[in-house]
């Protein structure tokens, strides 16, 4: 048992060690601060934060509806919202093209009417990332709402609190841990998004080329140093997120 466990630890650790060992430590700073790297990292940050904000704005009402509503088809709707979590991202990208692409169901009339089109734009990246990442937020917050003792809300109301006060002072603080966890999950999923983004939004440096896309392109075009450097940045971000959420959990 211990031997097999040790093997799997090695299996996970060796690739990370490989990244660290093969990293171009000497030229690291200049590689990361090159325009193409900064563009990719900046776009990743902007798009993933925008995705998280959209998840909060649109995902929260959906989570609320799924957790608290009672309507026919609720179970099917819940299944449908979680589908993007298990769907191959590249399939998601194709599906997005069919709907919001220049020749898509919604995209075509939108383009004819306004000349606006999502593919090959930064908003397109955000749409692709939202499609893949938002369900993580919805599901986490929904389960937080579901496991919360709703009698606490009854107690608050019977003490004279309006629905809004109950929401603000009781519901929100109690589901805050789920909100944070959901936001972190959705954000990190958005940071790593590749398949849906490249399929739907394309790979335009500075416009739709996020860090994962840049890493892949660098690697395939024999710029391995750049690929490794950017990868290490993402590793550092992931580690920071992991440690951050863990210390929060311990503190809470």
């Amino acid at each position, binding site marked *: 048992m211990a031997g097999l466990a040790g093997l799997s630890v090695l299996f996970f650790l060796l690739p990370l060690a490989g990244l660290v060992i093969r990293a171009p430590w000497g030229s690291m700073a200049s590689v990361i601060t090159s325009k193409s790297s900064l563009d990719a990292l900046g776009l990743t940050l902007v798009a993933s934060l925008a995705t998280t904000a959209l998840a909060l704005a649109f995902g929260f009402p959906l989570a609320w509806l799924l957790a608290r509503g009672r309507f026919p088809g609720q179970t099917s709707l819940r299944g449908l919202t979680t589908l993007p979590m298990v769907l191959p991202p590249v399939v998601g990208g194709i599906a997005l093209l069919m709907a919001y692409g220049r020749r898509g169901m919604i995209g075509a009339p939108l383009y004819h009417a306004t000349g606006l089109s999502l593919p090959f734009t930064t908003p397109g990246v955000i749409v692709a990332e939202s499609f893949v990442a938002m369900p993580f937020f919805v599901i986490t917050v929904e389960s937080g709402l579901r496991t919360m003792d709703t009698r606490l809300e009854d*107690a*608050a*109301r*019977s003490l*004279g609190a309006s629905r809004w006060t109950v929401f603000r*002072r009781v519901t929100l603080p109690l589901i805050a841990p789920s909100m944070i966890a959901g936001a972190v999950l959705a954000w990190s999923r958005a940071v790593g998004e590749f398949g849906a983004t490249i399929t739907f939004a394309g790979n335009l440096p500075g416009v739709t080329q996020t860090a994962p896309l840049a890493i892949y392109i660098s690697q395939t075009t024999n710029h391995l140093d750049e690929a490794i450097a950017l990868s290490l940045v993402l590793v550092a971000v992931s580690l920071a997120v992991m440690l951050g959420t863990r210390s929060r959990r311990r503190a809470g």
Partner: protein
Amino acid sequence: MLEADIQLRLSRLELAASFAVEAGEVVALVGPNGSGKSTVLRALAGLLRLAGGRVELGGQVLEDPTSRTRIVPEKRPVALMFQEYLLFPNMSAVDNVAFGLRARGTDRRQARDKAAAALARLGVSQVASARPIAMSGGQQQRVAMARALITEPKLLLLDEPLAALDVSTKAEVRRHLRSVLRESPSANVLVTHDLLDAVALAHRMVVIENGKIIQSGTPAEVTGRPRSRYVADLTGVNLLSGTGRGTSIDLDNGGRLTTGDASSGPALAVIPPAAVSVYRQPPETGDANIWHGIIGTVDLLGDRVRVRIEGTHVITAEVAPSAVDQLKLDDGGELWASFPAAAVTAYPP
């Protein structure tokens, strides 16, 4: 004063209960699980909508479906203390207690001052800044009490106020709750399934079963003349029903009971188990009632033993523990029971 006529239907319960509570009075709703006791409280608090009936408190109509009157929970001068207290886990005791005042618009500082004073009155100042998770059950109960009382409700509703406590703290909290309730100017309704709570805390008992009120009165009246098997089982007495014919009652499933009081028409009869004597042989006794049956269960209750004798009717006798050995009660078999006519209380149902 509360005047309530509550009619509503939940999935497994049809509730139709009408009762009144004076200001300063404590009424205990007792009944088996699922009888609708807690539902009555939720309806009074406005957390459930009435289908019919009317709730009026101190001259103000809180709800009347026929005139489409319905005051939302937060606007009712009603406080509900839940089972398990349901303190807000994300707030300190002071903030829990101050919540009702803050929600009604008192400014933060004043609300917290009043809350701290309320905690002091209830003897729990030491947990003022603690979160509920760090408090004992008894402390939580007092904080919940302070939280409920701070808005000076006209109607105080307590759902199983002592059920969440362990035996060692229950008696002390019950005494304290009694003194708080006796001073409270509000109409008070408490739900309990513990007869001792009802007797110790309430002026009046209302017995509810299957959504209907089947008896109400002072604890002495209700326990002395139970109208249902549920109450008889709570107090541990034998309850039989039949038709009175002078000083005897023809029991519903056959047999006859000789009573001290005269009765006529439908009648209930109570026989305290301690008045019942048991024998292995047909007894030679002056007792007017001699029954015979098979030994059912034998249970120790304090320093007495309760023996169930199952014949035409089931009767429970309470005997000294020494009788278990003398009469070999553990072996089962036939047993005779006798009790005098004077031990039987007969009354109309």
